[in-house]
């Protein structure tokens, strides 16, 4: 077991700097505000991707229900924004002014109790972390303590995603139903719809994203991260060595859920609404695909994967409105078939060796400074 003494090795440092350069400098300077806002939307999925790298790539826990946590985070934020947009003055046309419009349409005459805390901004911020975190803890505890894992766990998370969608759609008086929560306007009195606000929100999001990248990298480098990898490779050996496998799994799953929730909350801010279409099975699987395309072993890969797949989605659908889904499908199949480790695999297999050789020949030093490749079995 080699634990890297440095926080980033050289490869990762290059990746970190390149990504920072792209997101902080190149994109804001080169894109107009509409495209920048789209990039911001793509990046919200990168949060989910980073979580999946930890929980799936390292921990070996495939969750097909990340949309649930993305949605919970997004809904928490949307509830706060909706309450702010539903002031008595804005809603005087309704039979009960002061409650969100969809409640009025559904004959509710007062705000449901679970909406009331969302009048407060600090509580909302807490809820964005805590609600999905606690929910993930409950699911994780219920499953992992009973040693449910692998495919069964994936199926159960998928079922939870389906249940969640049906619940939200069915309880439209409380949740906005299939329309979702729309027409969000201000955050703590600050209009989030202006170009200026979109610009600032983009940077807030990128800063948060780097916060998550660093947090994920930190988790990965600690002993905990190594145990996760060990668990993925040989769960029983870890258990027989005296570790509580379930607790580590629960931790990884909760961390992934919280990352996803932060992404969801940012999504609501960037896009201006939240709906059950991000909660269900299909979006959850899409999120796994972004991670797979980026490379499930690579934190940066998850970010690149989310960016590129969504970019392809937008540009293909703009150019070929009727055929783009086929193009996208072909892209997925090609990537998974030809490059099972995704984009980061391509980088490591084809680009990295060239760079290494270049550097090695210049310094004429053997490249033994490299640590064990990411994700290699920890034995």
């Amino acid at each position, binding site marked *: 077991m080699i634990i890297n003494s440095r926080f980033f090795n050289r490869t990762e440092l290059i990746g970190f700097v390149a990504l920072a350069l792209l997101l902080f400098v190149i994109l804001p300077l080169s894109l107009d505000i509409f495209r920048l806002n789209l990039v911001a939307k793509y990046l919200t999925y990168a949060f989910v991707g980073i979580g999946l790298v930890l929980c799936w790539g390292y921990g070996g826990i495939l969750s097909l229900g990340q949309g649930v946590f993305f949605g919970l985070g997004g809904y928490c934020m949307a509830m706060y924004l909706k309450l702010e947009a539903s002031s008595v003055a804005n809603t005087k046309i309704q*039979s009960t002014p002061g409650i969100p419009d969809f409640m009025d349409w559904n004959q509710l005459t007062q705000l449901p109790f679970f909406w009331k805390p969302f009048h407060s901004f600090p509580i909302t911020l807490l809820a964005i972390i805590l609600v999905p975190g606690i929910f993930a803890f409950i699911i994780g505890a219920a499953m992992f303590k009973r040693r449910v894992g692998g495919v069964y766990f994936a199926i159960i998370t998928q079922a939870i995603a389906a249940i969640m969608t049906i619940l939200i759609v069915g309880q439209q008086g409380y949740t906005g139903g299939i329309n979702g929560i729309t027409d969000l306007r201000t955050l703590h009195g600050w209009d989030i719809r202006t170009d200026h606000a979109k610009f600032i929100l983009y940077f807030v999001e990128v800063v948060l994203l780097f916060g998550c990248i660093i947090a994920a990298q930190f988790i990965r480098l600690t002993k905990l991260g190594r145990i996760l990898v060990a668990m993925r490779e040989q769960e029983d050996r870890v258990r027989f060595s005296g570790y509580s496998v379930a607790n580590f799994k629960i931790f990884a799953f909760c961390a992934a859920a919280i990352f996803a929730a932060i992404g969801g909350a940012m999504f609501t801010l960037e896009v201006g609404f939240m709906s059950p279409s991000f909660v269900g099975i299909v979006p959850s699987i899409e999120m796994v695909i972004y991670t797979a395309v980026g490379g499930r072993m690579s934190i940066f890969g998850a970010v690149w994967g989310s960016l590129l797949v969504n970019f392809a989605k937008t540009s293909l*659908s703009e150019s070929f*409105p009727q055929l*783009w889904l086929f193009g996208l499908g072909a892209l997925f199949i090609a990537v998974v078939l030809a490059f099972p480790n995704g984009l980061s695999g391509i980088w490591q297999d084809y680009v990295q060796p060239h760079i290494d050789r270049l550097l090695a020949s210049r310094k004429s030093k053997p490249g033994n400074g490299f640590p064990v490749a990411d994700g290699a079995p920890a034995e």
Partner: protein
Amino acid sequence: MSDEKKPGLRSPLRRKLLMGMAALPAISLLPRTSFAEAPPTSAVNTTGLAVTDSEVTVGILHSVTGTMAISETGSVEAEKLAIEQINAEGGVLGRKIKFIQEDGASDWPTFAEKAKKLLVNDKCAAVMGCWTSASRKAVLPVFEQYNGMLYYPTFYEGLEQSKNVIYTGQEATQQIIAGLDWVNKTKGAKTFYLLGSDYIWPRTSNKIARKHIEGHLQGAKVVGEEYFPLGHTQFNSVINKIKLTKPDVIYAIIVGGSNVAFYKQLKAAGIDLSKQTLLTISVTEDEIDGIGGENIAGAYACMKYFQSLDNPNNKAFVAAFKKMWGEKTVIGDVTQAAYLGPWLWKLTVEKAGSFDIDKIAAASPGVEFKGAPEGYVRIHENHHLWSKTRVGRAKADGQYELIYETADLVEPDPFPKGYQ
């Protein structure tokens, strides 16, 4: 039918339309000078929309992929037909219409993203689009923020009115009240069983229906009300309840694929729609295509348009539609409403003498379209359309036979007093 009342008004336009269609192949040969009367761009476009001396760009925003594609394709086709016909007539203020089509992919945020693209990037002078209420709700803030103009074709639940939207379909009261009055009067219906898919449109519509039944129809009452998740396919238990309560009317607002299961199971359970009155506001000719005419024959639908309407406008429209998109296509209520979008926009622009959104919004009330396949329509101050309500009976061949239509245009009332 009633369209015969205003033949003098309608025929010149129809002639123009037919001439326009005949001139289609020759249109590319027309010299630019034929548009010489076009006013200068600087005068008709003061807000930087995509208008040049010869062209104006509009957007088409529907789902052509995903679960809604089956419903929205008809709207896309109708809008393209209308644009082609308008271009054949010489365009709008001397400018040809160019359209940019985007796919909403049956996904509400994608609608919002694409709407923003059409308005911000492409500077579309108008957008024809959306189908579901959810997609409209998603794009509405975008249209209001960037001051765009949306022509929305679907019949919907009402409770909305925006400067930036023209609703070319019916709001709920236009579709419901006249139909209930009709069934009460001609069938003597007193007991109603309300059914619906579980989302905002059926729920709001049934709320209005219940208020009308209980408040305005003498001695009538609702004997049951039930909702099913979208995509639901097991209707046996509710069919049993219907058999027990024996309502005079089954009032069904079931949407999408669920319809197929519902009508097939109804038939299998021995409920004969030629004896049991069933009134629906959610099954157009498009849906019958999936349900099968033999499974729904005898049911009544309350719409504003049926493909079988017997008037010259509609005959020309159906012929042109089939010529462009194939003999097998069917035309439902929403498809016709989508066809109105580009025409109403053209007429409004010409009335306003400008492409500016604010001027169009202000000029819209009072704009009338005499060439509408459904007959005559006019835009109300609340940006909805005055149009007639019609009741048709489904036939085994998948078409509706017109049974009843209101004598006058029905006023749109998106915020009906006493029905909320």
